């Protein structure tokens, strides 16, 4: 059988791209589920499977045992030795209509920073629950992280259904508890699937053991989820990355603003404002190496030509005047603290937002986020590793920002250590005034 995402099929059906993430507690069978998805979509090739079979035997498994699919995904020596997943691993699988980029995230509490990383780019999150244990503290934390980072689609995979005799009541109880928690956190779309990752039930193939389940298999759902719509429907945001000025005989006066549309749609003829500087012009052309195009949508890398010779460069953002982001020199935000050293008020940091990096001071910690309710409590003295809290930042230069709640692409920022350059926090712009 061939690999499914090739162009060798007779149809010219489009192959779309879905970025997703997985999260589960330790021993929920997440690596096995990922291995199962890869295997059942023929994304694991013979030599890879052979290597896993050899490793299974080397670790004391029987020659006739099912290959330990977790060994496929645990890429680092320490992970295989300890039998745990330490770092985000990226996996690729495909069906004839869709390619999947999967950020496989470890479940341990101390690796929440990886869960945040995986969720930041995901359009869908799969949260695993062990059918025998139901919703546990870790589940709530993964759910909260997905809700906090506004992952648009959520899937609850109730795993190890084989160990509870594929009991519908067990599944429905977990589904109800999870859905209630998700709804209270404002997650709009939750689909629950009863699976056995080990045996493949309802992963890629419908299970005969769950006649009471009428929903899609996990893979069917992953193929059907709509993608990219929200980014296109948001107001247009174009952060300028670099200015292209060839100054050659062929292009003596070419001055193109190169960038990737963060959200919305940009069309030739649009009125635009440049932020934070506030200049105004009209889009005279949208250029690509294949020639000019009339329009570009969120996610596309293009080069924009303006009708007027404005002072615009890296760090500026183009928007429509009537839908402009707000320009601020004070920022209210939620910070997910990713560094070992705690954050205390007064810290001097860098804020990287879009294509602009500015100096900042954290003037105040306004509260710690309660992951059960996504509300703030108290005003902590410090924010520790893996904690999420509200903060106020004073910026050395203004930034053009959106609320993270309305635009994931222009509402997120990095907090960076000015001394050693390390990433200290994921920042989410809080609701503006």
């Amino acid at each position: 059988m061939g690999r499914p995402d090739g162009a060798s099929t007779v149809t010219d059906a489009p192959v779309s791209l879905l970025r997703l993430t997985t999260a589960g507690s330790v021993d929920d069978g997440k690596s096995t589920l990922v291995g199962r998805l890869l295997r059942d979509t023929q994304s694991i090739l013979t030599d890879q499977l052979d290597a896993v079979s050899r490793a299974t035997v080397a670790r004391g498994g029987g020659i006739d045992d099912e290959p330990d699919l977790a060994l496929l995904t645990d890429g680092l020596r320490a992970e295989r030795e300890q039998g745990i997943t330490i770092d985000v691993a990226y996996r690729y699988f495909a069906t004839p209509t869709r390619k999947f980029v999967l950020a496989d995230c470890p479940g341990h509490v101390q690796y929440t920073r990886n869960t945040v990383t995986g969720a930041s780019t995901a359009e869908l999150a799969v949260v695993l629950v062990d059918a025998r244990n139901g919703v546990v503290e870790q589940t709530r934390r993964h759910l909260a992280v997905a809700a906090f980072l506004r992952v648009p689609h959520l899937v609850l995979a109730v795993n190890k259904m084989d160990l509870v005799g594929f009991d519908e009541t067990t599944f429905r109880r977990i589904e109800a508890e999870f859905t209630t928690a998700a709804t209270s956190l404002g997650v709009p779309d939750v689909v629950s699937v009863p699976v056995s990752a080990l045996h493949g039930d309802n992963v890629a193939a419908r299970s005969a053991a769950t006649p009471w389940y009428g929903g899609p298999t996990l893979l069917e759902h992953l193929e059907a989820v709509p993608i990219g719509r929200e980014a296109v429907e948001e107001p247009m945001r174009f952060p300028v990355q670099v200015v292209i000025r060839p100054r050659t005989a062929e292009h003596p006066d070419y001055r193109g603003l190169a960038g990737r549309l963060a959200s919305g749609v940009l069309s030739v003829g649009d009125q635009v404002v440049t932020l934070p500087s506030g200049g105004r012009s009209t889009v005279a052309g949208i250029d690509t190496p294949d020639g000019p195009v009339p329009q570009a949508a969120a996610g596309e890398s293009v080069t924009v030509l303006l009708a007027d010779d404005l002072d615009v460069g890296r760090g500026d953002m183009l928007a429509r005047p009537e839908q402009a982001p707000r320009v601020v020199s004070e920022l209210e935000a939620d910070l997910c603290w990713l560094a070992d050293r705690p954050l205390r008020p007064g810290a001097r940091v860098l804020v990287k937002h879009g294509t602009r990096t500015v100096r900042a001071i954290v003037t105040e910690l306004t509260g710690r986020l309660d992951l059960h309710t996504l509300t703030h409590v108290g005003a902590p003295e410090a924010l520790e590793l893996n904690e999420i809290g509200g903060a106020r930042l004073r910026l050395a230069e203004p930034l053009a920002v959106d609320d993270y709640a309305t635009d994931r692409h222009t509402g997120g920022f990095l907090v960076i250590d000015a001394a050693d350059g390390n990433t200290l926090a994921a920042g989410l712009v809080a609701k503006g005034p």
Partner: protein
Amino acid sequence: MTATVTAPPAMNGIRPADSDHLAALESEAVHIIREVVAEFDRPVLLFSGGKDSAVLLHLALRAFHPGPLPFGLLHVDTGHNFPEVIEFRDRMVTDLGLRLHVAEVQHWIDDGRLTERPDGTRNPLQTVPLLDSIAEHRFDAVFGGARRDEDRARAKERIVSLRDAFGGWDPRRQRPELWSLYNGRHTAGEHARVFPLSNWTELDVWNYIARRNVAVPAIYYAHEREVFQRDGMWLTAGDWGGPRRGEEIVRRTVRYRTVGDASCTGAVESTAATIEEVLAEVTASRITERGATRADDRLSEAAMEDRKREGYF
């Protein structure tokens, strides 16, 4: 049988970039390349002439079109490369008017900084010339065509991945990579390896070569060649030391799925002579390109992780 994927139908007149996975991967790579050029002082692109580096170069040229490429190329040449690939490398450089630095492993062996290995393979010897060249030219960002689907250790690598002053990679101390905000801050002596093709698979690369008509060396397509068999792979005779006594040279119709050091890169028997035929073959293949053709990756379960920790590509 078609070589390219046509654009999907419009959705309410507008297509999100992700509705066409090749377009999405292309836009992502172009975005990464532009970010790095904007934030680093001295980038360089590792160009071996292989298909991944050919695609990477194509994307870099697109990123700055119609302007010139704002950085040069670097090749660590083991001296055991296929002549067709070196010829392709030099033709691309001349035709496009690019700058190319070549670090020849032979020079390091000649002046005693490196010693030839008993097995004659020079792939692991590339690390030192690579790190020396990065230091000598003070490159602070090094673009590479590595993909996460190639290896389990690579699957854990960031797109912008920091290296310490010794070129080492510490997988447990990687910076979280959030949204599409790449943090390339580094201190003097450190540099970043940048992998714009991180999210591409071998099949994506071939589909992209077909869609954009990207030039690659002719040995990726089926041709007749004198080869001999070793460890289940078809190797080409050459200065690197093959064949040994008892290894018989035969003529076969073959092509290469990867091109690297001739001592450890095998050909596969194939009649795929066009991009369409190669695509069909890669799509149907049940063996990864590295499993089929790279002896160096069969060394151990953690071969790539160990080499990467030491500063390998």
